[in-house]
Structure formats: C-alpha cells, structure tokens
C-alpha cells in the first residue's frame, strides 16, 4: 500500500512550549483523512511542519514518498494547500491571484480555474481587500485545486463558507479524490469527518491518537476536548 503522507515520530517544540510530541501518522493514497482536535492541539503545527513552514529536529516526514525537507519544492508542486486564514495580497484582483498561483507553478490552469470559479461562484474582478473571509476562502480553494494536485491539505476549510459552498467544496474534493488524489482535512467539525472522511485521527495536547473509525459520536468526540487522554 502506497502512502501519501508518512510522519514518523515527529516532535516539534517552540522553545520551551510544546508543539507536537512523537506524532506518527500514515495516510494512504486516495484517502480522505480527517484530522481532528481542539485549538492549540497541534494540528496546524503538524501541517505546517509537513509543508516546510516550521523546522523540526526530531522525526521525519515523507510526502508521496519524498522527504519533506530535501524534496520540499517537488512536494509543493504536487500539493494543494488551503490555510485556515486565507490571506492574499490585498491590492491584487482575485483573477490576478489565481493566475499568479498558476504562473509560479509554471502551469496554465485557466480551464480548471474557470470551472472552479463557476462552481464556487467566485467574483474574479474584485480586489482581495474587498472580500469577506468566506470569499477569500473560496479563492484559496481555487488556488489549492486549480493545478489538480496529488495531495490536498485543508486546514479548517469550511469556516466562513455558507452551507451550499460547503457542499460544493466537498463535491469537488470527492471528484478529485475519485481521480486519484488524497485529502488531509483538518477540522473542528465532527459531522464533516463523519460524513466525508474514510479514516481519522484526533490530536490533543500535541499527541495524536488514531481513531478506529471516523464515525464517532458527539460524546466521545467531546471527551477528547475535555479529558486527559
């Protein structure tokens, strides 16, 4: 079985503050993997370590079989990342941001970007600074998907999106996954994991616990927020 993500004993701290502790995780190719956990649990730290935003000294991360440090640029060419806070250059127009993301990748993604903008109802003529959080998130989705990456990493993607756009977003995820992509979905929203994910893990205080099934009930889920592991 090939793995899209292999994290092996990752430990990351910020000075004396805990980041993540001894995290090991494998996500199979073609999976939609739910990544749950309270605020500050270490979900974003794990994701940001995978993408090279954070430097870690202990453990290793392999993405699509490539070393996350050595093959950083190659990995990013095959990843579509959507951060929890979708920020772009305020003075640029939406269409310019989308084209810029494609241009830096050296790809012509015009057709795919058009399709995504239609599905997500993105107004391409507006300036970024005129957009609400939800609309910035939609631009972020287009930037993450237009190059049809092999791996999607979404950090709380649906916050700020209306229910119809949330549905459209997951429809798109399903379409790309059916074509062979893998998706790591970091979220607080349990129903999203129950409904869309095939496997899931939960983080608490920097440590990761694999769930036997993503179909957990609210009570079990909330226990992770309230009690010690």
């Amino acid at each position, binding site marked *: 079985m090939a793995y899209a993500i292999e994290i092996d004993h990752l430990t990351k701290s910020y000075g004396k503050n805990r980041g993540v502790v001894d995290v090991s995780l494998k996500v199979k190719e073609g999976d939609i993997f739910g990544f749950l956990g309270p605020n500050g649990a270490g979900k974003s730290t794990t994701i940001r370590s995978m993408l090279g935003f954070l430097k870690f000294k202990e453990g290793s991360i392999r993405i699509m079989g490539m070393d996350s440090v050595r093959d950083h640029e190659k990995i990013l060419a095959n990843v579509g990342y959507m951060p929890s*806070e979708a920020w772009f250059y305020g003075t640029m127009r939406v269409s310019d941001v989308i084209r810029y993301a494609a241009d830096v990748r050296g790809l012509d993604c015009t057709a795919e970007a058009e399709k995504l903008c239609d599905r997500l109802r993105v107004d391409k003529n507006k300036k970024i600074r005129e957009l609400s959080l939800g609309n910035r998130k939609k631009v972020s989705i287009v930037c993450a998907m237009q190059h049809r990456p092999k791996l999607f990493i979404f950090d709380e993607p649906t916050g700020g999106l209306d229910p119809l756009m949330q549905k459209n977003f997951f429809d798109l995820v399903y379409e790309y996954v059916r074509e062979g992509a893998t998706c790591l979905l970091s979220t607080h929203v349990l129903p999203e994991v129950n409904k869309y994910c095939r496997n899931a893990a939960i983080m608490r205080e920097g440590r990761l616990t694999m769930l036997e099934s993503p179909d957990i009930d609210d009570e079990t889920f909330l226990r992770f927020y309230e009690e010690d592991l």
Partner: protein
Amino acid sequence: MKKVFLKELRMNVKVLLIWGLAVGGLGMACILLYDSMQGDMKQMADAFSNMGAFSDAFGMSTLSIATLKGYFATEVGTVHGLGSGMFAAILAIGILSREEEGHTGEFLLSLPITRSKTVAVKGAVVVFLLFLFTVFCGIFYAAGSAILGEQLPAREFLVFMSRQLLMNLEIAGICFAISSLSGKNRTGAGIGITLLFYIFDLTGRVVPDLKDYLYLGPYSYANASEIFSGAGTPANALIIAIAVMICGAAFAFFCYNRRDLAA
C-alpha cells in the same frame, strides 16, 4: 522566479514613485532655487566657509556654495543622502517580513518556490528598485541643472550617484538581514539605522577624535562634498561597504532558511 520578481516589482512600484518623486523632486527644486539665491550666495559662501568644524562637516570649507557644484554637494547631497538612505531602509526592512506580517507567507511559500529562491528574488527586487531610484533621481538632478543652463561636472556627478547607490545597498543589506529575522515590519528601526549612520558621519566630521573611524559608516564614502572636491577614493570604506552588503545578504539566506515562519 520571474513571476515572483515581477509581482514584487508591481507591489513596490508605488513606493518607488513616491520616494523617487519626493527625493528627486526636492533635489531638483533645490537646484532650481540656486538661480534665485545666486545673488546672496557670495556673502553666504564666505560666512559658511568660516564656521570651523561645521564648515568641514558640511563640506563648505572645501567647496563654495556660490558655485552650482558646491551648492549641489552641500544641499542636494544632503537631501539625496538622507532620502535615499531612508528609502533603502524602508524597502529592505519590510520586503521579507511583510509576508508574515500580512499573513501572505503561507500562500507564497505553499507554492513550489524554496525559501532560498524567495530571498534571492526579493533581494534582487531591492537591488533593482534602488538602481531605478538612483537613475530616477539622477535624471531629476540633471534636468534641474539643464533648466538652469549650467552643467554639473559629469564625472563627479556619476561618482556621487554611484557611491550613493552603494551606500543605499549597504543600508539595504543590513535592513534585509533584519527583515529575515522576524515576521514584524520594523520600518522605524530601518529609519533609525539610517539616521544613526548619518549622525555618526556628521559627528565624525565635527569631532576630530572620531575622524579616523568615519570609514566604518556608509555615509563616509558617499559624501558629496568630498566627491565634488576631488578627494581620493576611500578604499577601506568601500571594502567594508561591500563586505557588509554580502554579510547582510548571507545572513538573510541563513536565517530565513532556518527559522519557523509565522502563520
């Protein structure tokens, strides 16, 4: 990389135009005022050349402000030196940190471009914009003297503008290194560094004990009065400038590649 370079240029072109127009325009206005002040200039030149250390500090003991050359060196030299130094500092100190402060770092660095390439592109943008700024201001000053119907000595003028560019690059090198340190824009620190260097140079020219250490600061080799009065090339100061520039850029590469980026 070309796309990132062009995007950075587009994002900074407004700042270039504002500073270029302000510094170049102010310098040109100073040159144009020369004509109307020429009548009183003779007496002023005599008075200014007999002010001891202060005359030395502003170069008025070696150059007469009654001539366009002397007037340019003392007036426009100061305006351009301070203005361009501040522009270099503001430009360089924000170019890397701005991505984190504006939360755009995650967008940029999630694209397939390494941190080293990001630093290289942004460094190249700073160098290119400072070059454009120097040319821009140079055209203003040349136009000003042409309108007056007088000519500045071409060689000295080119040396002055080149040294000013080098001085800007040295300040930018220091500020670029600071920019790589954290995700906070430190514009105030950049302006402070420029003023500190300027005051160091000014003080060094007034206080005899400090004269031997003038070469440590970037304003020493870019001093208009010295250049226009034909003083020799300060080789040690130029070597230090190039070394500081290289160290600043190397530090930026080293630091930006090794630290965690803010969300």
